[in-house]
């Protein structure tokens, strides 16, 4: 393995996914180095969510391969991929609705620890508890730790969803439209949080809010109808003619 390849955290090779006759991903090649915040943008139906779902094993690709830290993960079941260090926060908030914020995050943190005695009372696992509180503080939910998830506001549920993803201490964090449906204030909070997280984690971000993407991303990949049509820094992308055409075309 070459030195330059060691720092690649995730790579897709000719990744293709079709549903019946519809090609959602068409020979997508991605190489994302460790520590980068990569944004993926594109009009609706470009295949962005399909890409994340394929990486996390929720969908099996029609052809092509996915490598995570140099190892092939194509076709592994979702829990196996999650265990290797890929976490996903979905477009539609996915929490454990009738459990407290604490329990929601506890479940993710628990993944990191092997307990020798499976019948140990959960309260005896103090390390986990400390981690849960740490994550709550980081994410800004420390005052709502005992609240039931389904009683939280949409914005807080979104935060909790990200917190669950973070709780497994992933090496790669996938965020699918984390800003969708949030108020202005919540948007600011979540985008600051993403900025902060990007200091320590590799992130793939799907987002429709172009201003946020331009501010946050190290590099941007543009998808259109399942193909990568451009890739570059925010500045390069904003000056790319093809991208402008796609966007202007789709906005009409």
């Amino acid at each position, binding site marked *: 393995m070459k030195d330059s390849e060691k720092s690649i955290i995730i790579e897709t090779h000719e990744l293709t996914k079709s549903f019946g006759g519809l090609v959602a991903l068409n020979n997508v090649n991605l190489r994302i180095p460790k520590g980068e915040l990569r944004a993926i943008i594109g009009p609706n139906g470009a295949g962005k969510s399909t890409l994340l779902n394929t990486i996390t094993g929720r969908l099996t690709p029609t052809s092509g391969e996915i490598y995570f830290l140099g190892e092939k993960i194509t076709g592994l079941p979702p*829990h196996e991929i*999650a265990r290797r260090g890929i976490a996903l926060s979905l477009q539609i908030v996915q929490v454990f609705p009738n459990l407290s914020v604490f329990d929601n995050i506890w479940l993710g943190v628990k993944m990191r620890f092997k307990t020798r005695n*499976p019948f140990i009372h*959960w309260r005896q696992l103090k390390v986990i508890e400390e981690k849960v509180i740490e994550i709550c503080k980081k994410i800004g939910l420390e005052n709502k730790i005992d609240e039931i998830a389904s009683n939280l506001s949409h914005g807080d549920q979104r935060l909790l969803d990200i917190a669950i993803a973070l709780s497994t201490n992933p090496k790669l964090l996938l965020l699918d439209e984390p800003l969708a449906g949030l108020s202005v204030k919540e948007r600011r909070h979540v985008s600051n949080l993403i900025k902060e997280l990007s200091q320590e984690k590799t992130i793939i971000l799907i987002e429709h809010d172009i201003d946020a993407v331009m501010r946050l991303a190290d590099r941007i990949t543009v998808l259109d109808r399942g193909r990568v049509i451009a890739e570059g820094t925010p500045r390069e992308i904003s000056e790319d003619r093809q991208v402008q055409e796609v966007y202007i075309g789709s906005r009409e």
Partner: protein
Amino acid sequence: MKNRLILYVLVLVILFSLGFTLPTDMRSLSIDIFIFAIYAMAYDILYGYTGQFSYGQAVFFGVAAYGLLLPVLHTNTNLWVSLTIALVITVVFGIVLGFLAVRLGGAYFVIITIIFNLTFYLIALDWIWLTGGDDGLTFRAPKIEFGVFSLSLYDPVVTYYFMLSFLLASYLILKRLISSPIGKVLIAIRENEERAQLIGYNVFRYKLLAYVVSALFTGLSGALYSLRTRYASADYFNIALSVQPIIWTLVGGAGTLTGPIVGVILINPLIYYIGVWWKHYLSIIGALMIFVVIYSPKGIVGNLINKIEKS
């Protein structure tokens, strides 16, 4: 916390003293309740905690009943050996059937468990050489042996304490299970299976575990029941027996462990006494099921317990 401890002690004292004070018929009913309470808790682990709605638990009740009866009848094994055989066989059945039923979940799970149940019942009715069919088989209950001294299950007071101790032990084990990390993951799967998988839990393995644990304790209940009645018949596989835990759980409240026991305490005497004066009591049960699900889906008792715990 302190209140709860007092409650536990109080319940224990009452249960203990009832053993030698209750009149015969009430004691008999209590013994049934102890045995079925284990069944009810087993169902709660499966449905209440993991969200797997089974309509075929009688399979394990019947398998374990015969698993205990047959060795005693044919080879005269002692109590502990027969009970162990019964439980091991039940777990094997649990793993095999669970492997087929658990994977798909939802409607498939319900349908597959019904099919198992109806087929096992058919087999039990038909294979008379093995099961005695509808007439069943009777046997002499082995003595309860503890090293040098032994007790007889023909003494109802002994039976009372014997069954009570199994109930308490089962309660403690299952309570511990649901307070362990495993228990939390089971609840997580009930709440959102997809999310649980996305943070790295092997959902199938946990669901299968819940299924097998449930089978094991259902089996314990069935084995104890055959020991108590000194009898088993094809009826121990009757699908009606698979409806029972559903009713207990509905009335008592799912996912509370104690709720379904309350369900047993309320429903079994009711069935017993209504059954005495009206042979079509099952239609009342049917109406009750419809009523509870439509008007009090969290369980009559479950709702009350929630209110008490919150206050």
